[in-house]
Each structure stands twice: as structure tokens, then as C-alpha cells.
């Protein structure tokens, strides 16, 4: 148990250490204003990472997350701007589109038993193509205010907090509760840890997997709304960075790529680590090439720590 705690607390300690480091190197880092900016910058990836965490907990991976999010954003904005669809309906349609992709991913994984890596690689390309074609590779501008309200901020103790960031935190709270305090949540872990064993104990593993991919799709739709709110446009090229960044956030946060282990809140820590480094290195005037370097090193450290803590946790028999 102690070893697994290392895997989970490690990233949090790394985040704190990074914050202290940047606070020493720039007196602008630890201001409420700057931290609020970092939170805003992280909120889209943060929400995508919730869905990605669910998938990775089942020992899968969703390579299509960013592209599906982008599709959701285009659907929402195009409907609202060009078809004058009421904002609430447009949002629902966007989330429905991303949920549909989630369902497709889930069905291909459970019924055709294709590896999630391959399936989502395919849906990544399909989602990207549909987004480019539907949007004609043009950004959708003049988006109605209703779609961007979550990008507005309110004052909290001298700095502004964006509503979208609160939504992200609320979603994390819901996800954390569901995964740790409900049977359905524990079943996600069981399916990721030992799928055949879970099936034998009577868990409907197909339904669990399908549900996970579907919920992930919903997360991507919510992230799309946050992305539109943040940038004020529907951008067909949004989501390309978030694609890998979301997976990085989950892995750096300590969730095991082998499934069955990890906490969703860690993905928030992972996302924050990436955002803090990007912000801090810019404040220090360091080239962004080093951000990539740091990101790569963190991923390897995270996976190595995960492997190490797993080996420590197991006793005898050479069982995995």
C-alpha cells in the first residue's frame, strides 16, 4: 500500500516542487492572477483527462480524444452560428456527437474485440476528417454569447476565476466520487485489473467498457464547450495538442497504463504539472523546446515509478 501511495503522491510532490522552483525563479509565478491563468489554460485538457482516465483504468487508451473534442466544438458552433440553433440545443448536439464517437469506440472494443489503441487510432482520423470537411477548415467566429459564458470570470479575492475552471473542478469531484464510492466505479477498476476475473464474478464487463467509452465521449463534449468558451471560436484545429497532452496528464498523474490502478484526481495533478511547466518556463524566458524535454522526462519517470511500485507491492509467486 505504501508503494502505491508513492505512485500517487509522487506527482503531487513533483507539482509542489515545480511550483516552488518557479516561484524562486520568477516573482510573477506565485501570484493569484498567474495561478488563475494556469488553471484556465489547463481546464480543457483537464476535462478531457477525466474521460481518458476512465479509459486507461480499463487498460485501454483513447487516441481520438482531442479530435473528437474538436468535432464537438465545430458541431456546437456551426449549428449556433449558421443554423441559428438555440445555444442549449447546439451544446447538446455537440455533446451528442462526441458521445456517439465514444459509443463507436466502445462498441468496436467490446463487440469486435479490437485493441483500443487500434480502434481509437481509426476514430481519430475519422473524427479529424469529418471536422475538416464539415468546417471547410475554417474557424467559426461570431459565436453567440451563450456558448462562451463559461469563459467569463468572476472576482475572487483579488483575482479572476473563470467559470469553466470551476466546472472542471466540479467534474473531477463527481468523477472521484463515482470511481471510489460506487459499485460501478469499483467495477471499472476490477475490469481493468482482471477482466476475465471480473466477468467470472458476475460483472457485466461489456457494459462497463461500453459505459466507460461513452462517458469519455461525453467528457470530450464538455471539454469542447470549455474550449469554445476559452477561445471564443469553433476551431477545427483545436484539440491536436490536447490529444497527447491528455494522455500525458493521466500517465504523469500516476494512473497505470496497464489498468486497474490510479485515481482520477491524479490526472488533474498531471494536467497542472504540464501547465505549470509551460507557464513557468515562459516566465523564465526559456525556449519551449525545454518544455517538450521536461514533458518527456516526466512521462518516463511516471511510468517507471508505476512499474517500480507495482513490483514492490507484489509478494512471492512471481504473479503479475
Amino acid at each position, binding site marked *: 500500500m505504501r508503494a502505491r501511495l508513492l505512485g500517487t503522491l509522487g506527482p503531487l510532490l513533483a507539482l509542489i516542487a515545480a511550483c516552488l522552483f518557479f516561484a524562486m525563479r520568477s516573482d510573477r509565478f506565485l501570484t493569484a492572477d498567474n495561478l488563475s491563468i494556469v488553471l484556465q489554460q489547463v481546464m480543457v485538457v483537464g476535462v478531457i483527462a477525466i474521460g481518458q482516465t476512465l479509459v486507461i483504468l480499463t487498460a485501454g487508451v483513447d487516441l481520438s480524444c482531442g479530435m473528437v473534442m474538436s468535432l464537438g466544438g465545430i458541431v456546437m458552433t456551426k449549428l449556433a452560428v449558421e443554423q441559428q440553433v438555440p445555444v442549449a440545443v447546439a451544446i447538446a448536439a455537440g455533446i451528442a456527437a462526441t458521445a456517439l464517437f465514444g459509443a463507436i469506440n466502445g462498441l468496436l472494443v467490446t463487440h469486435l474485440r479490437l485493441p483500443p489503441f487500434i480502434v481509437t487510432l481509426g476514430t481519430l482520423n475519422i473524427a479529424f476528417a469529418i471536422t475538416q470537411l464539415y468546417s471547410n477548415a475554417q474557424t467559426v467566429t461570431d459565436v453567440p454569447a451563450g456558448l462562451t459564458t463559461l469563459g467569463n470570470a468572476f472576482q475572487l479575492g483579488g483575482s479572476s476565476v473563470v467559470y469553466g475552471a470551476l466546472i472542471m473542478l466540479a467534474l473531477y469531484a463527481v468523477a472521484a466520487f463515482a470511481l471510489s464510492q*460506487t459499485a460501478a466505479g469499483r467495477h471499472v477498476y476490477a475490469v481493468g485489473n482482471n477482466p476475465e476475473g471480473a466477468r467470472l464474478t458476475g460483472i457485466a464487463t461489456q457494459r462497463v467498457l461500453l459505459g466507460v467509452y461513452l462517458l469519455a465521449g461525453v467528457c470530450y463534449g464538455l471539454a469542447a464547450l470549455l474550449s469554445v468558451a476559452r477561445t471564443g471560436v469553433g476551431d477545427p484545429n483545436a484539440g491536436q495538442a490536447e490529444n497527447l497532452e491528455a494522455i500525458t496528464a493521466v500517465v504523469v498523474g500516476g494512473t497505470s497504463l496497464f489498468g486497474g490502478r490510479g485515481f482520477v484526481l491524479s490526472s488533474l495533478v498531471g494536467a497542472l504539472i504540464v501547465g505549470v511547466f509551460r507557464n513557468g518556463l515562459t516566465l523564465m524566458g526559456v525556449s519551449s523546446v525545454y518544455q517538450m524535454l521536461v514533458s518527456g522526462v516526466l512521462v518516463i519517470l511516471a511510468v517507471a515509478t508505476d512499474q517500480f511500485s507495482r513490483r514492490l507491492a*507484489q509478494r512471492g509467486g512471481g504473479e503479475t
Partner: protein
Amino acid sequence: MTDRLVLEARGIVKHFGHVTALDGTDFELRASEILGIIGDNGAGKSTLIKALSGALVPDRGEILVDGVRVHFRAPSDARRAGIETLYQELAVAPALSIVENLFLGRELRRRGFLGRVLRMLDRRRMLEESSAFMKELGIGVRSMKQAVETLSGGQRQGVAVARSAAFARHVVIMDEPTAALGVKEGKLVLDLIRRVRDRGLSVVLISHNMPHVFEVADRIHVARLGRRVAMLDPKGVSMSDAVAVMTGAMIPEQLPPHTLS
């Protein structure tokens, strides 16, 4: 032990590609009896009990519970019929705790709003009941909240045994329950099996451990090449004869009648 059959199978056939795992095997289990199943590797023992427990669907044949024909499509169907199974591969989630594994698939929820609407788990109650199960079995662990993967092979098996015995309402099937256990723990499992039988349930016990089988079983089902070749009386037949029938060195017809059941 009465002659009423609680679980019966007729002519079960199961193929896996070109391999015929079950070749029209029969099976019968009486009320309040301990039935031992012995057979060489590849005899189809594990496949048979997976068919009985709903873990796989036979290609042909019928299964009857209390004389009524049933069609198990998933393990939960068999569980609903009161059949609990302990699989050879243990079917535990190593990263989850002992408590979570014991209640996997049948978690307890909190009462009232928290449980019904928020679907919140009642961890305290599950912890209490888990501790009781494990104590009854005499399996010592540091903490019920520790992950199953931190347990020794024997303790892990103890958790799986406890799970099958604790929730059983009708039939318990155990595939190699004493395989990883030491002498003392093995004896405790045999005691548990007897207690389960005395509770009025029936137990199916697959084991390579002949002395264990002969110690607790009321009857012995001999499996060979996907079929049931004999039903033996452990009090009448000798262990070496039983093994001989199991390996095919002796055909059942060669056995005297008092050894049969």
C-alpha cells in the same frame, strides 16, 4: 444426504475450435452432498464446471437446477440460481482490497438517499462482514483493506474460498481450492467445506489432491477425455484404483460393485 438432485447435466458438449473439451458428459449432484471430481489434465473438469457456473455456454446438452432446465448465459445467471464458484484462476482483482474482492459484484450500498440515489457504498458494513468471513475461515491477514496482491498465494486463495462459501445459497463449486495451501490451511478449507455441506448446501470439489478428496467427498465423479466414466464410492474404492480409472489404466467395468456409487 438424500437422493434429490440439485444440479444435473446431460450430454454436455463443448468444442474450442478443433479441440473437444467436453464430449457428451453427464453430471449429477445430490442435495447436501460433497461431490469430488477427479480427472487427468485435459479431462474437461474445469470446462464442465464453467458450463455449470455460467462462465461458458455449452454447444449441446442440458443443465437442470432442482429438476428445472436452465440456460445460463453469464456467470450472474448461475449466481442468481444460487450457484457460487471458486475458479482455479481465482478471479480476484489483485489491485483491489480484500473487502472489495469479497463483495465484488454484490457490493452493499448505504441505506436511504445516499445509497439509493447516489449509489454510495457502505464500506463499514462490508468491512465488518468481510472480517467475520475471514475469521471464520481462520485466515489471518494484516488488514482487510490491504490489496489482494500483497497477500501470499495461500492467503489469496483463502480470500477466494471465503468468497464462494460466504455467499453460497444452494451449490458451491470449488476448482482446486487447496492447491496453493499448506497442510494446516488445507485442513481448514476441508473443515469449511464440511460446514457448508452441513448448512444444507451441496459442494462440488475438483482436486488433484487425492487424500483431500477421499477425506471429504461423499461420492467421486471420474472425468476422462471429456466424459464421465464412473461414479465411485470413496469408502469402497481404493485411491490407487480411482487413479487407475482416471488415467485409463483400468476400465470402470473392471471395478467391483461396492466401489461404485
